[in-house]
């Protein structure tokens, strides 16, 4: 009897100490994670805070990210009009290129993905393998001939070299993403539709696309963000200031103002991140799922 009681108390003590250990571990882990989060986000907060400081306080405020007493919005209009062409033009250029890229990419990639995922035709496996190969290809290999091609077409200094490839499904990654998703849609649905006499186009348009809104949205958002962020393409193809995208505008700002107008530069940097941040706020679950299921690079 006594031994039983003893054993019981030993067990509960063991249990309690384990629970305590887990508690301690959990607290330590949270402290670590909170510390890491602050460290990671600090540069972004500092950028935001600096954009609201008067010019002479930016580098005298130390590491503080608290807004200074003299809350100052001047940097924004100063940056906005800091170059001969205003940032309004750059923003509208970036939006035009990004939105057309989204339309082209989603349309062309979903067509190709539907063919790979659902249609039977000779050579399907071969072409699918070729498509996968292009995923690994460094863009530098096609860069110069593409430039020569677009130059000969008279497209340099227009938006066309940045947009037309998207309508030709040049970003094979999104085809792959959509093929994965389409394969998960039950085949019975299109077989039933085929029984009712629906052709491939109707199946694509009436069945596949409506059932695929999550993947289409993921592709659209990532296309937008990557196009918005793209620096290399605009750097090569756009040389007139009025055609510049926001990214090129920022780069020009760092060059032309030398080291003087940090406030304006920071303010425009903040604005350039706003569209991406908005997508992050509203669609982060979609973005994270997209990465988790397909292993996206960013």
């Amino acid at each position, binding site marked *: 009897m006594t031994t039983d009681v003893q054993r019981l108390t030993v067990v509960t003590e063991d249990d309690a100490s384990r629970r305590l250990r887990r508690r301690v571990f959990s607290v330590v*882990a*949270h402290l*670590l*994670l909170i510390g890491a*989060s602050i460290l*990671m*986000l600090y*540069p*972004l907060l500092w*950028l935001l805070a600096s954009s609201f400081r008067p010019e002479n306080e930016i*580098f005298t405020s130390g590491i503080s990210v608290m807004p200074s007493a003299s809350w100052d919005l001047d940097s924004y209009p100063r940056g906005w009009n800091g170059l001969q062409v205003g940032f309004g033009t750059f923003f509208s250029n970036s939006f035009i290129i990004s939105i057309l890229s989204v339309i082209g990419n989603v*349309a*062309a990639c979903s*067509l*190709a993905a*539907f*063919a*790979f995922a659902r249609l039977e*035709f000779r050579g399907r496996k071969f*072409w699918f393998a070729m498509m996968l190969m*292009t995923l*690994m*290809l*460094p*863009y*530098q*290999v*096609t*860069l*110069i*001939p*593409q430039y*020569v*091609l677009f130059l000969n077409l008279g497209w340099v200094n227009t938006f066309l070299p940045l947009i037309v*490839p998207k309508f*030709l*499904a040049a970003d094979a990654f999104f*085809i792959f993403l959509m093929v994965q998703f389409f394969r998960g849609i039950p085949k019975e649905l299109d077989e039933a539709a085929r029984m009712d*006499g629906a052709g*491939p*186009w109707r199946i694509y348009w009436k069945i596949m696309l409506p059932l695929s809104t999550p993947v289409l949205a993921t592709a659209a958002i990532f296309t937008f*963000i*990557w196009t918005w*962020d793209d620096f*290399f393409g605009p750097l*090569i193809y756009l040389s007139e200031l009025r055609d510049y995208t926001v*990214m090129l505008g920022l780069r020009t700002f*760092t060059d032309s103002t030398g080291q003087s107008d940090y406030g304006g530069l920071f303010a425009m940097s903040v604005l*350039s*991140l706003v569209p*991406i941040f908005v997508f*992050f706020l509203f669609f*982060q679950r979609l*973005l*994270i799922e997209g*990465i*988790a299921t397909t*292993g996206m*690079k*960013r």
Partner: protein
Amino acid sequence: MTAQSISASARNKGGAVGSTFWSRAWENHAPGYLFLLPWFIGFFGLTIGPIITSLYLSFTHFDLLTAPRWAGLDNYIRMFTNDRNFVASMRVTMFFVIFSVPLKLAFALGVALLLNRGMRGLPLYRALFYLPSLLGASVAIAILWRQIFAGDGLVNQFLALFGIVGPSWISNPNYSLWTLIVLSIWQFGSPMIIFLAGLRSIPQDMYEAASLEGASKWRVFWKITLPMLTPVVFFNAIIQTIEGFKSFTPAFIISGGTGSPINSTLFYTLYLYNEAFSFFRMGYASALAWVLLAIVAVFTAFSFFTSKFWVHYDD
């Protein structure tokens, strides 16, 4: 009888002749090719055609204004025997990849393991850690980085609190490349998400079996978690390495497009860009691109070959 059933009966008879053969072939194969049409135009016009052309251009001198002049192996010979910038850019890129990829993956895996222990607030942490990955490719972030690591930047202001006078990190050739490596590690969020997904797909009963046998946590990690996770580690390593080789924007912005100071941030892509679009040596730049392709191909083939020895597959 509907058209559908006619074609179905034709199919049943097998090897039809004449027009039925062609109409059947059309019916079976044409839709696939029609749906692929935009991709085909892009594939041949923007990928295959340019690949072949750039291979040809790599054996020429080409300044964009006059026709390419055949140069034989000149470009490649010059690259490997008489081009200090090529050697410098290769060294910078290799250094960057060798340090940034393992460190980034180590951070990603470490945080993923921590989060995977059923931490409360996981979605919030995951989102916060992911944010830098999403924003990181932007020019704005490169500009921010340049300020953070400047002589009077955030890092040195922080060090000053402890009485340490830090160097100007970005204009010191000993540290400039490290600032870019730190920038890359800062973006560990997306491999972390992939690790989290991988951790979650490890069957729970394996852990239960191990705990019944009284295995220590350390042992469980080495004997179950890590082996089961090797396919994800492998995948992340390949993707991040290829991304590392292709990295361009941060080095361009931070060094003002030159790879300075003293070529310490002269990434391979940056060198290639300057050869092509600053000096218009398009033939030489094409040769550089082909060497890059060869490196990426050899690296990928090598990884897949060695993966047999350390990547764990179920079947």
